[in-house]
């Protein structure tokens, strides 16, 4: 074969000699041609070239050949390991499935949490030197954080030396009338120089100029969001310079602001200059103020200076009396120390889960490794080096880990969108939680680390695989006790999770059976937004009335009405009332109530029962006291018999408030939350209190078609320029009320399933391992006359004992945690016996099963085999 086996030195010597011979032959020929010998030799040498260089060429050639073969050889060995690994896995598909599932759960959780925490907590804020950016807030006399007034902002900017620049943001609902269909949007206000201070540049166009940001008369220029730029302006540069109509005012689009600004302006689609003025009421607090620290200032110095300016403001202006101010690094105010801590806790928890998964898989592998001791012994005897065997075992582990990683990425792909949806609006930057390259690289690192952690156990066990005599003797090594403890802990933890899921599920079921007091089926709902900027207070009552009239003309619509409380949006309006004939002398004696502004058709459109009196009628307004409808709960609070309320008089707000006449009593409406008992409620006519944001409800004849188009047309007819958002079935509102409990069930259920699987795998692996360890003992017992059934029962009983220890811990933890859970429960007690018994039964049965399956192997032990193998 190759001469590489021979010593390299000898090889070089031979080459040198060969080349000398070459030159000698050439010299011989030249000599025959007539040259003297010495001249011929010199010429031959000159012709030949440098023997050293040729030697190096040959050496290089030799190395090229050898590297080629060693790479191929390593590759061949790897392929062989791989083939063997796959063969081994095919031989025990159940084992492989359990291992991959376990690792997939652990890695999936870790990857999901990692990308989530990375996006929300760990990623730096997208500003220039974000650690120098702070948020400035006012402090109320009670010491609570509060928004800032325009004069205060201007004084801080003018007086403070601790800031390089100060910027202010405000937000408000608005109507975008053109281009395109009218839409309700959020409008942001920003002072000139704010983007520059943050180190952000416009995506297109420019930012505001200082002269456009003049007090009280800001120029009609606007920056638009990237999403608005794409949806309304096609993402073209020609958008810059075009005009748009916002709140009935024409604006010139001068730029597109970058996505990063969302951290300050939230959902705002259009941003216009703030035009802060010292003349604005100091009592109006609505600004969010951020600043960049001046180079030589630290957070503490800047805060001291701000405090002293606030002290001057407190002394100078009566509105600011006893107020103060403070500042926090922008990171803390946007993300918050609580979120940061929660992020780290989540990371630690998912890391723990991954370690658990690794421990379980390693005990599975150990159980298997002990059954393979003989195979390894034979292979060692046949000359396979220990390194080779170790490599093969690690390759098998790596195959399992690769499967687990693939499954884990799949889990993360499913879990991340769900998590983003659930957290949207609650945490900044959740939308950035995606599976990108850095996260996948970290996942790869995790997988490699996991492989080394769980894959090293069988390799260490290999030390006992001596040629031909392959048997392990020792039992009860310290590792076993630790593993038992971990398995018991897993059983306990899965009891807690299972119990929580059971309770939340039963709570969800009883919640979805609650009668909300109205009929959601067969009705549609539309939100009508009429912001101050676009419609005056006086216009709105007539506007809504005409919309309702026009909607009722749509074929298929039976009745329509509007309410100021969008069902299950969670927002409510509150006030106080009292009986006119028992008027308390102080406001504190008044009855707190929720109130709604509605149109006359509302009760019928919602299909609510009238318990006494009547609903509103057209023409109720006009003479004397205002008519009101109250619900049964308010009637019951104020009168002995609810029916007595009709025709009586109430007082609105305070002893001098307006007088109201009760015309009817209706069934209570559960439309704030399904879980809580409805609060006493009073209904007033929208024409008297023309609320700006209303929900129109239309009851539709079953089977009617074309309703959404009809609604759009009717609204556009009656109120040109009013945005018409989504038209949804009223049932969608009810569904929204169930969304959070449903999410809780699914989330905790996911954890419970994962926990249960982990616990079962752990118990299974441990039992299989220990049974294998005790083959000898079992064999001896069998040969002494024990029946296989007895041995099996003994093993299962022992495992159940271990599980019971875990369950006891789980019960204690659950009793402690149940109190905390009871806030989330509806219609089921935290100590619900059915749920507790169910969860305990599930765990006892499944842990029994997880012990019973591997115990079968013990009963197949033949006493003779055990003794023969001695």
């Amino acid at each position: 074969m190759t001469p590489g086996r021979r010593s390299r030195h000898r090889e070089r010597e031979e080459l040198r000699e060969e080349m000398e011979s070459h030159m000698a032959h050439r010299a011989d020929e030249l000599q025959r041609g007539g040259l003297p010998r010495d001249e011929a030799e010199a010429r031959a040498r000159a012709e030949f070239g440098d023997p050293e260089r040729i030697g190096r060429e040959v050496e290089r050639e030799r190395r090229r050949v050898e590297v080629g073969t060693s790479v191929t050889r390593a590759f061949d060995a790897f392929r062989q390991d791989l083939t063997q690994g796959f063969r081994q896995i095919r031989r025990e598909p159940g084992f492989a499935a359990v291992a991959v599932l376990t690792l997939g759960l652990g890695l999936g959780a870790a990857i999901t949490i990692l990308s989530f925490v990375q996006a929300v907590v760990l990623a730096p804020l997208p500003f220039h030197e974000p650690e120098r950016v702070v948020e400035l807030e006012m402090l109320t006399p009670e010491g609570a954080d509060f928004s800032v007034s325009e004069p205060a902002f201007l004084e801080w900017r003018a007086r403070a030396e601790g800031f390089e620049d100060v910027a202010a943001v405000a937000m408000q609902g608005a109507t975008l009338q053109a281009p395109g269909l009218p839409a309700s949007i959020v409008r942001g206000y920003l002072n000139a120089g704010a983007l520059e201070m943050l180190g952000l540049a416009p995506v297109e166009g420019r930012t505001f100029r200082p002269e456009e940001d003049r007090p009280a008369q800001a120029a009609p220029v606007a920056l638009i969001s990237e999403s608005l730029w794409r949806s309304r302006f096609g993402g073209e540069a020609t958008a810059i310079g075009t005009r748009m109509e916002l709140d009935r005012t024409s604006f010139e689009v001068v730029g597109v602001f970058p996505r990063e600004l969302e951290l300050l302006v939230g959902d705002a689609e259009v941003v216009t200059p703030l035009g802060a003025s010292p003349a604005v009421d100091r009592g109006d607090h609505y600004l969010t103020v951020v600043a960049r620290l001046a180079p030589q200032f630290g957070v503490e110095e800047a805060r001291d200076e701000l405090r002293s300016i606030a002290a001057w403001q407190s002394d100078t202006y009566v509105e600011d009396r006893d107020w103060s101010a403070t500042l926090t690094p922008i990171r803390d105010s946007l993300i918050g120390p609580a979120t940061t801590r929660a992020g780290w806790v989540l990371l630690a928890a998912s890391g723990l889960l991954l370690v658990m998964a690794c421990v379980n898989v390693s005990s599975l592998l150990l159980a298997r490794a002990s059954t393979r001791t003989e195979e390894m012994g034979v292979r060692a005897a046949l000359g396979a080096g220990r390194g080779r065997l170790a490599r093969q075992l690690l390759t098998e582990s790596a195959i399992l880990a690769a499967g687990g990683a693939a499954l884990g990425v799949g889990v993360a792909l499913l879990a991340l969108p769900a998590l983003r949806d659930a957290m949207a609006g609650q945490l900044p930057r959740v939308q950035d939680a995606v599976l990108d390259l850095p996260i996948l690289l970290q996942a790869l690192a995790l997988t490699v680390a996991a492989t080394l952690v769980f894959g090293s156990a069988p390799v260490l066990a290999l030390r006992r695989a001596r040629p031909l005599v392959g048997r392990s003797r020792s039992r009860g090594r310290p590792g076993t006790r630790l593993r038992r403890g971990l398995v018991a802990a897993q059983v306990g933890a899965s009891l807690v999770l299972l119990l929580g899921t059971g309770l939340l599920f039963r709570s969800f079921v009883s919640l979805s059976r609650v009668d909300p007091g109205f009929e959601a089926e067969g009705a549609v709902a539309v939100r009508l937004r009429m912001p101050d900027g676009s419609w005056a207070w006086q216009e709105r009552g007539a506007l809504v009335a005409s919309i309702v009239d026009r909607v009722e003309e749509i074929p298929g619509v039976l009745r329509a009405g509007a309410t100021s409380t969008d069902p299950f949006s969670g927002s409510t309006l509150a006030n106080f009332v009292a009986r006119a004939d028992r008027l308390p002398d102080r406001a504190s004696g008044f009855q707190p109530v929720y109130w709604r502004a509605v149109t006359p058709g509302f009760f019928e459109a919602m299909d609510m029962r009238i318990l006494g009196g009547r609903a509103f009628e057209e023409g109720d307004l006009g003479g004397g006291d205002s008519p009101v409808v109250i619900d049964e709960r308010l009637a019951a609070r104020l009168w002995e018999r609810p029916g007595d309320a009709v025709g009586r008089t109430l007082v609105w707000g305070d002893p001098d408030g307006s007088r109201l006449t009760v015309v009817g009593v209706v069934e209570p409406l559960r439309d704030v939350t399904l879980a809580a008992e409805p609060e006493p409620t009073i209904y007033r006519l929208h024409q008297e209190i023309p609320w700006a944001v209303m929900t129109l409800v239309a009851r539709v004849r079953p089977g009617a078609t074309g309703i959404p188009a009809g609604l759009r047309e009717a609204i556009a007819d009656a109120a040109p320029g009013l945005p018409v958002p989504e038209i949804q079935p009223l049932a969608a509102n009810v569904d929204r009320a169930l969304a959070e409990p449903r999410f809780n069930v699914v989330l905790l259920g996911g954890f419970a399933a994962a926990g249960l699987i982990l616990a079962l795998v752990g118990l299974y692996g441990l039992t299989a391992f220990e049974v294998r360890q005790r083959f000898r003992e079992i064999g001896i017992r069998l040969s002494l006359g024990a029946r296989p059934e007895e041995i099996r029962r003994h093993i299962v009983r022992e495992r159940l004992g271990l599980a019971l220890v875990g369950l006891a811990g789980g019960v204690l933890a659950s009793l402690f945690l149940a109190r905390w859970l009871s806030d989330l429960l509806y219609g089921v007690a935290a100590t619900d016996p059915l749920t507790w018994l169910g969860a305990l039964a599930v765990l006892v049965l499944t842990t029994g099963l997880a012990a019973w399956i591997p115990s079968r192997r013990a009963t197949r032990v033949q006493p003779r085999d055990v003794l023969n193998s001695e």
Partner: protein
Amino acid sequence: MTKMDLMQGTLDLLVLRTLTGESRHGYQIARAIKRLSSEVLQVEEGALYPALHRLRARGWVDAEWGTSENNRRARFYRLTSEGRAALEAEREHWARYVAAVGQVLDAEEAG
């Protein structure tokens, strides 16, 4: 005719060809290539010895020390049966290559 250096890759083929008859040592191989090509092809010693090493590593030639016609010690190379098979395959490959290149060069330019 000017002398031409050998194209890379063809040297192995020519070395194998010079060994089809008797075994030869390095100097003889270089001479044979020069002679058989009517003195057109010039073998660099700096390329010849790495090539010989390569052919030996592939198992296409064997080497053995012996005594030359000038009564000097020299390493003689001999074609193995694998080397003979490789030569046949390379020869055919070369013929097709030459034919293809010739066809392109002789073709009438279209258009």
